[in-house]
């Protein structure tokens, strides 16, 4: 038996095989647990984790949540103004366990919980467990495979354009350090169109560990929005692995406001002629710390990628952006552009931006740009010289700075929903 890392021991000990689960899953869980045990937590010596501290996780054992754990989260009071106001097919999770399902679904759509899918729709569950970890950098995804209790499964048939977004709401609530594991699967059939909005919110000290596998079939289009406004004591790690078929389109926008420590891993594998638009905005204050790590893999010709990330860091907060673009041999006519910018609003705030291009084809266009700065002094003076107070002027300029990222979203309702969240953050008291 291989040696197990000390930090992995309590998680291994908390693991209970469930004999009611199908054999393939029992097996996958055991293997994943062993893989995590050997690997342990990533450290700053791992290139992909150089700028992300896992110290808050090492200091505490976050007890894995059990299905039978009492959950007192209340949708209305805890969720508040974070919900999407338009019509949506909504799924609600409390501490990682499904609590509410949409009542009526249109034909061609399967939307439900992972616990349900394991028996009713095993191929979707298997897809969610399949490893498409492009960088080999995700030990927490292995831990997730071993311990996940639930998640959402979204299957859309071929040729269906959904009339409203799928909204996935996660409420976390915990008095003691608790770990929550969600395993999600999204499969969009050829030529179909859909939007998924994920929202994370909560109270107390918990660790959300989310893994989502996504396949967008040929000619299909998926818009994937995420609003992360977790409790300020929470840890939020989410990993999305997306594969895009021929001419498929994928748009991802993440707004990071909450959590004490958070990380988004987004890995996209593009097929021929596919298009990925990956954007994000992160706003942090106090001693919050967030990382966006995006790996774009151009495996075939004629595909395009646009990446745009913007951060606003106040007080002692820290942000990081790691952007890898890989263009494999034969992926000719790849067109990829990456932009990452950050505003540092305080002397003690900091950011790390690390672009990485690995290009093995010769007929490609790849650019990246990064900039870190403060608010434009001339613009600030101009606004103040018109009677606008300094705080309001700063808020206006910060919102303007972020606008470009939100503008990558096509739906005006979703754009406004997110712009409202940004304004709410800006209006909030400092930590």
């Amino acid at each position: 038996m291989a040696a197990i890392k000390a930090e992995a021991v309590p998680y291994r000990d908390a693991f209970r095989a469930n004999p009611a689960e199908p054999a393939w899953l029992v097996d996958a869980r055991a293997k994943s647990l062993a893989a995590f045990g050997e690997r342990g937590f990533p450290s700053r010596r791992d290139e992909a984790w150089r700028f992300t501290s896992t110290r808050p996780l090492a200091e505490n054992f976050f007890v894995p949540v059990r299905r039978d754990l009492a959950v007192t989260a209340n949708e209305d009071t805890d969720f508040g103004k974070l919900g999407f106001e338009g019509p949506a097919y909504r799924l609600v999770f409390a501490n990682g366990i499904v609590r509410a399902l949409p009542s009526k679904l249109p034909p061609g759509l399967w939307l439900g919980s992972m616990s349900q899918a394991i028996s009713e729709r095993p191929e979707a569950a298997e897809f969610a467990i399949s490893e498409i970890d492009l960088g080999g950098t995700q030990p927490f995804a292995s831990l997730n495979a071993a311990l996940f209790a639930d998640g959402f499964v979204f299957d859309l048939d071929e040729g269906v354009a959904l009339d409203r977004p799928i909204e996935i709401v996660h409420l976390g609530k915990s008095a003691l350090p608790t770990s929550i594991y969600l395993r999600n699967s999204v499969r969009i059939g050829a030529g179909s169109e859909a939007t998924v909005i994920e929202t994370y919110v909560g109270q107390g000290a918990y660790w959300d560990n989310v893994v989502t596998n996504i396949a967008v079939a040929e000619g299909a289009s998926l818009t994937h929005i995420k609003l992360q406004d977790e409790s300020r004591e929470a840890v939020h790690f989410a990993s999305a692995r997306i594969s895009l078929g021929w001419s498929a389109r994928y748009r991802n926008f993440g707004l990071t406001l909450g959590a004490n420590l958070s990380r988004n891993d987004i890995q996209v594998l593009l097929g021929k002629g596919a298009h990925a638009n990956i954007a994000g905005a992160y706003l942090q204050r106090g001693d919050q710390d967030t990382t966006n790590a995006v790996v774009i893999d151009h495996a075939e010709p004629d595909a395009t990628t646009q990446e745009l990330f913007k951060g606003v860091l106040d007080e002692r907060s820290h942000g990081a952006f790691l952007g890898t673009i890989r263009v494999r041999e034969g992926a000719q006519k790849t067109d990829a552009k990456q932009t990452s910018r950050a505003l540092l609003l305080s002397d003690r705030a900091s950011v790390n931006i690390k672009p990485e291009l690995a290009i093995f084809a010769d007929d490609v266009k790849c650019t990246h740009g990064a900039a870190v700065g403060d608010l434009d002094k001339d613009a600030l003076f101009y606004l103040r010289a018109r009677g606008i107070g300094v705080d309001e002027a700063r808020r206006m300029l910060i919102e303007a700075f972020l606008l470009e990222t939100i503008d990558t979203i096509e739906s005006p309702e979703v754009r406004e929903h997110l712009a409202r969240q940004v304004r709410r953050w800006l209006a909030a008291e400092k930590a």
Partner: protein
Amino acid sequence: MLEIKNLHASVEGGREILNGVSLKVKAGEVHAIMGPNGSGKSTLAGILAGRDGYDIASGAVTYDGQDLLTMPPEERARAGIFLAFQYPVEIPGVNNMYFLRVALNAIRRAKSEPELDAGQFLKSVRAKLKLLEIEDDLLQRGVNVGFSGGEKKRNEIFQMAMLEPRLAILDETDSGLDIDALRIVANGINRLRAPDRAIVMITHYQRLLDYVVPDFVHVLSEGRIVRSGDRSLAGELEKTGYAGVGS
């Protein structure tokens, strides 16, 4: 209304730019300040509006008897001071209309006047746009974003017309305007003339002063007002240049 007394100022950590400017502006008056490039005209305007980055070594500025130099820029604007920038700033992502409404309401609140609702605001905007012959669509863009040089200057005067200041300082608002635009802008300025208001125009050209006739003309050179006179001084300068002027 405005009194500048022996003002000495330098760029933070740099050389002295204003060395002993004194100027008195009373309500109802229009003053023109002329002077060679680099003589300190924009520096003076910036200091009056509250731009930071200057060291005031000595001297004083009062506005309605109040010490102006300790007031933050927004308070000066709320007290009725308006600077039309020589180089209006482009602010992408901040919508022009929204910006103007926030500004106007901030100033109205300071004067204990009720804020304008969207309808009242729009009505006022429409009237003033017409006066300055500005296209509607300019207002839907980011503040000054993609405006031509002349459009930026017109937008400054449009903002002035909306905010109705008591003391307007216009820094080379006439530069870069075509002949028709100059007439339109001058008309906008003249409409603001009133017994309880004052205007200080910084300019290089006699032309503007033909439309907006000043009560006083001053020559600023090397950081000091070296000569003051009535409107005929501008005509004289046009002929002789700055070389022969001053002490």
